[in-house]
């Protein structure tokens, strides 16, 4: 099993277990979500990015020291810390928010949700509008 970065470790905890995914799909989504978060953190103002970076290290250390190995155990540790004050709560909410934004918008999840492929979706709507415009007086 590859060694996870602190960021990937947290993303794994925040990624939902629904819908069911193949190992390949899971790894692909994990890697794309991590790439999205990396971009987001480069765009983040310093007064959010700095505490986020510190808390990321803190949570990674806490998870290591807690000895929690399984996903469920690690989630319990995070849930416990979520109740320990506003900064932790805000950090976890923000991290989970970004993770879920990227996760739910991922093409592989979209497929699982029976939603049309992005390109096809846009092309269909462009064609629909084009047809409407052609019929306008």
């Amino acid at each position: 099993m590859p060694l996870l970065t602190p960021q990937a470790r947290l993303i794994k905890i925040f990624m939902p277990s629904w819908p069911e995914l193949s190992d390949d799909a899971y790894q692909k989504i994990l890697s794309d979500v991590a790439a999205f978060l990396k971009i987001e953190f480069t765009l983040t103002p310093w007064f959010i990015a700095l505490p986020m970076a510190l808390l990321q290290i803190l949570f990674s250390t806490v998870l290591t020291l807690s000895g929690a190995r399984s996903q469920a155990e690690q989630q319990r540790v995070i849930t416990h810390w979520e109740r320990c004050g506003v900064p932790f709560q805000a950090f976890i909410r923000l991290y989970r928010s970004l993770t879920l934004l990227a996760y739910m918008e991922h093409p592989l999840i979209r497929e699982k949700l029976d939603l049309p492929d992005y390109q096809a979706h846009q092309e269909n709507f462009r064609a629909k509008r084009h047809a409407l415009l052609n019929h306008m007086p």
Partner: protein
Amino acid sequence: MITSHFCITDNTALSCDVLVIGSGAGGAVVAHELACAGKDVLLIEEGPAIGHDNAPLSAAEGVARLWRNGGMTVALGRTPVAYAEGRCVGGGTEINSAIIQRAPDELLDRWAHDYRIHAFSAAALEPYYDKVYRTLSASMVEDAFGPPSDLMRKAADKKGWRLDTLERAHITCVGTNMCASSCPTGGKQSVSQRLIRSALAKGLRLIAQTRMHTLKRHGHVIIGATGLARDARGRSHNINIKCKTIFVAAGAIHTPALLRASGITKTIGNSLRLHPTMKILARFPFDVNAQDHRLPLYAVTEFMPMIRLGGSIFTPGFFGMALAEQWQAREHLLPHMRQCGMYYAMVRGQGLGRIRPVLGNRANPLVTYALADSDKNHLVQGLKHLADFMFAAGASELYPSLAGHKGWRTPQDVVHDTLNITQANLMTVHLFSSCPMGEDKVRCAADSYGRVHGLDNLYIADASLIPEAPGVNPQATIMALAYRNAENWLTQHGG
């Protein structure tokens, strides 16, 4: 379909008659009006130029590409307020829902009196609002609004509450539900679509990916501006621009930040106002499929002018973000996305905020905001009205954006709930009033036509000028003021 903009690839010095900084609702109007009058206009935009033919594919991509700081912007305070701003050619008009509304007449008339704004009243602004509506083809959507709207209609009928249909800037909107990430079909009529394109044809020069960080001043005159441009590889280049007149239209946060960073501080950035907003994630015992439809095209105006209820854009990603607000209580909704919708209660904020540039980090000013007590009361009332409304629409579970809240299952749960607004996850997409206009120099940063007090050739042309929160979407008001102020400038400068 923006064309003819250019990016800087080396250290550059330019000159122009009129420099406009910021290409959103205000800056685009000024640039268009002046370019069409034959003036030599240079329009600078910090973000990229994105046409509908290369619009982001997903909401996540849209947030990263078009929203300032990837959407990670917040006004700090006891109850922080997350806010969203566009950072691309077209500014906020590229990421908003294109809802076009006039500010209430009584408010416009009161501002004229309270802030001593010359030749300003609801009647005086009427022709400019008309021009905005014509320019953007503002009209009702003609085909079916979809279930998220229908549910609001049903609840309003049941409650007997006043419900307004919202007019939008569009030509044959086909309902992609991608408004927050630009419009992939070109149906939404943003200012890049309607004004910047035609101004380019009239000789406007547009430079994207360039941030101006300082205005150069000589006595009572601004002689130019300096900034940093980014090329396609992300490398930075210095840019110096000489100009005779300058319009700053960088929005309610970055206009005061730029002015203050340039040593222009009197009554600048001390009176930021906004519309504090709380959302409710609603689950229905049937499929709504909000992700496949337009955002709700109604607003409950029963509690106006202080409280307005409406519906939000709903994509799988935004649904995920709503679940993250209180994961333990909402996780079970994940497989039921199709049964969910997102609605909001928006308050005409009375609180005040401040904007201060940060030394060494000019791109990210510090923004603070303090809710007024009346805002807290209105938010509680608004949230309870919204919950009542959504239960009337048939919702079976409601989850308000309050930290630690377990949700409501019945209308009685709402009645008995003592809401703690300091726990609210507040957000807003409407920011204004940080440099209000008027002749009252104690309160106002700019005169009745947007010229900064004490300076001969520096003008403001964005939401900063709006004296107070209008209680409705501000785009039409920003544009109407920009049309009025551009016309006045042209009258004075031989347009």
